């Protein structure tokens, strides 16, 4: 961060405009990242008083070390089966992203957003939540849908806005909705889902049920008022919610410091509301799972909400409309100190003797093939370019439960 040029007058004030440490062509510098070693951070019981664990907001929960071993009290002891399931979902997410990105480049749809580098945040969390817990995601948690078994074909049909688009041509490609899979309708307006999740969690408590809500928000979007409202209401009503901040370091072209990560990490926001906060290595599948599990258990025990900051990195452009080389060094992704979540989990499975490079390559091939086959199926139904889309009547449906006279008239005006 550089501050403004030295003011002319003595003792004059000056405005700080935070700047990232490195712009394109400059040397990488991750000196600002607050790291802890794997296994180093203590794991409190889930019923601990929040006042006793304020320091967790400033540490970094990590399980996997540089030798790919799982260390310390947060090591979740997940079964090999669960680990392999997680690896598969992350890899499938990545293969899906690649294919859909290409589809956009080929003009088959208008827009796409990848989550490369952040797959663990969604997939490990899906593993830690129960199927009937509700997710309130952003556009970068497609991994939740994939981990929860939502059909790839449906996702693709939406991305391609074809005749079988489950959202009937009304939504942008990546803004999914899948009630049956516990996945709330994604809004294009940032932040709104955060307080909504708290309301859903309050409803579960109101009904004396046992379901919890989990919400995700980007580092940049924490600046929206909804973030504050979510924390406030979650604190006041002790809502059983998991409030995830996905700190992938960038909000389009703005680095995390512009969202207020200069002087205190996002996790620490929670402590002032009387909520516990965990700061976790978001590229460490085991750590994300363990932290989420802790928060879920706490919420389910009627002890209220937890904020989790996932420290990760947006390894690609913001969306198909973005070119990150304009504002950050191209080497930044490769240099990211917390590595890649897929590679790390794969190496861990190898380290514990349950996986191999060959198995990995084979799985990758299988998944790419699966995605390709499904994509062919979806493209055969149609793409935005072929124009085989849902009936235009759908444009006028679902504004209200029953169509009022003025919409019926408008539909007629369009001749349908």
């Amino acid at each position, binding site marked *: 961060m550089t501050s403004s040029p030295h003011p002319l007058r003595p003792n004059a004030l000056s405005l700080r405009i935070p700047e990232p440490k490195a712009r394109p062509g400059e040397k990488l510098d991750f000196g600002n990242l607050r790291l802890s070693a794997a296994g180093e951070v203590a794991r409190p019981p889930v019923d601990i008083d929040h006042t006793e664990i304020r320091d967790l907001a400033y540490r970094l929960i990590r399980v996997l070390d540089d030798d790919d071993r799982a260390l310390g009290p947060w090591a979740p002891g997940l079964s090999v089966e669960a680990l392999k399931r997680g690896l598969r979902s992350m890899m499938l997410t990545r293969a899906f992203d690649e294919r859909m990105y290409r589809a956009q480049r080929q003009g088959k749809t208008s827009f796409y957003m990848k989550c490369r580098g952040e797959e663990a945040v969604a997939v490990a969390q899906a593993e830690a939540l129960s199927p009937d817990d509700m997710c309130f995601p952003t556009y970068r948690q497609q991994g939740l849908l994939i981990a929860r078994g939502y059909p790839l074909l449906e996702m693709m049909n939406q991305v391609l806005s074809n005749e079988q688009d489950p959202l*009937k041509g*009304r939504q942008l490609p990546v803004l999914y909705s899948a009630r049956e899979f516990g996945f709330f309708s994604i809004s294009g307006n940032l932040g709104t889902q955060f*307080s909504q999740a*708290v*309301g*859903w969690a309050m409803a579960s408590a109101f009904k004396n049920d046992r379901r919890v809500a989990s919400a995700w928000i980007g580092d940049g979007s924490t600046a929206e008022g909804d973030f504050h409202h979510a924390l406030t*209401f979650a604190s006041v009503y002790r809502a059983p919610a998991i409030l995830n901040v996905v700190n992938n370091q960038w909000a389009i072209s703005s680095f995390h410091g512009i969202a207020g990560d200069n002087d205190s990490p996002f996790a620490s926001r929670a402590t002032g509301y009387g909520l516990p906060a965990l700061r976790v290595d978001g590229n460490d599948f085991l750590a994300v799972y363990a932290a989420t599990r802790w928060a879920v258990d706490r919420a389910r025990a009627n002890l209220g909400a937890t904020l989790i900051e996932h420290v990760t990195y947006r390894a690609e452009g913001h969306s198909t409309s973005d070119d990150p080389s304009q504002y950050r060094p191209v080497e930044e992704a490769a240099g990211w100190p917390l590595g890649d979540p897929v590679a790390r989990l794969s190496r861990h499975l190898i380290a514990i003797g349950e996986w191999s490079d060959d198995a990995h390559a084979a799985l990758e091939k299988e998944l790419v093939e699966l995605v390709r086959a499904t994509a062919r199926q979806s493209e055969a139904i149609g793409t935005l370019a072929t124009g085989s889309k849902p009936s235009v009547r759908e444009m006028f449906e*679902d504004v209200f439960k029953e169509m009022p006279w003025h919409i019926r008239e408008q539909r007629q005006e369009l001749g349908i």
Partner: protein
Amino acid sequence: MATMNMIQALNSAMDVLLTRDPNVLIFGEDVGFFGGVFRATEGLQKKHGLERCFDTPIAEAGLIGISVGMAAYGLRPIVEIQFADYIYPAYDQIVSEVARLRYRSAGQFTAPITIRSPYGGGIFGGQTHSQSVEALFTHVAGLKVVIPSNPYDAKGLLIASVEEDDPVVFLEPKRIYNGPFDGHHDRPVSPWSKHPASEVPDGHYRVPLGKAAVAREGSDVTVLAYGTMVHVVLAAVEEAGVDAEVIDLRTLWPVDIEAITGSVRKTGRCVIVHEATRTSGFGAELSALVQERCFYHLEAPILRVAGWDTPYPHAFEWEYFPGPARVAAALKRTMEA
């Protein structure tokens, strides 16, 4: 059957709703123990429990945000925004979320939320306790907008709104909470008990959304109004000595277009009255609709009587408020045209 003022009628509606449906809950600023600054929720917490009617932090966007989540869970929230002037912080949640949830999720998730809020002037509330915000919601696809003008309708419309599967912005003309107000601020206030619409059934009933009421039959000119203005118009009609047909819209959107066009085709003249700032107010839409559909029946220009295009100024309450004199002048003007 009891005699109720508008507050009592609204309270009774909420009592009925809480009693009949365990998924109904009420929240807002000061609505719990205290029962709301206008006392609309008085006694409901005590009767139905802390969790059925409770206070919230002062964060209108937060209120609406949590209500979206609750509705998605299957609850049916009634949210009070203390004054309509304070609904703006929640505008994004209402416009981008509440209004669009059904559409964008292709019906997977819905937001049957009723947003109650006192609106309008006539109480020396100054700029931030007097505004009429209806047009900011009629422009938003996916919202219904309801405004009652008397106790009977208030209860029946509120029950219908909450039982409706679509979100409703339910605006309450606060000036007539305690009695009908014809705009003659210098005359004694008359209580609701003297008005026939204060006879309100104790139990459950609905006044259907989308249906206007004819507040006065007439043949010279059609006057479109809602809320407090219905009473002002009725007074003005008498004073102008014009045989006006006064239509109380009750539901602003989707509006009862047949009631409007039927009447204007009969009378050939139309005056539209509202408290909100004139420019881009709901009167503009009404004027456009009438003109589009009754062009060949119109014998005079459609006139609008509305609040001035200024903020609502404290000391000029009665210069700002579109009272009976201004309405009567418009009636005469349209008859002379």
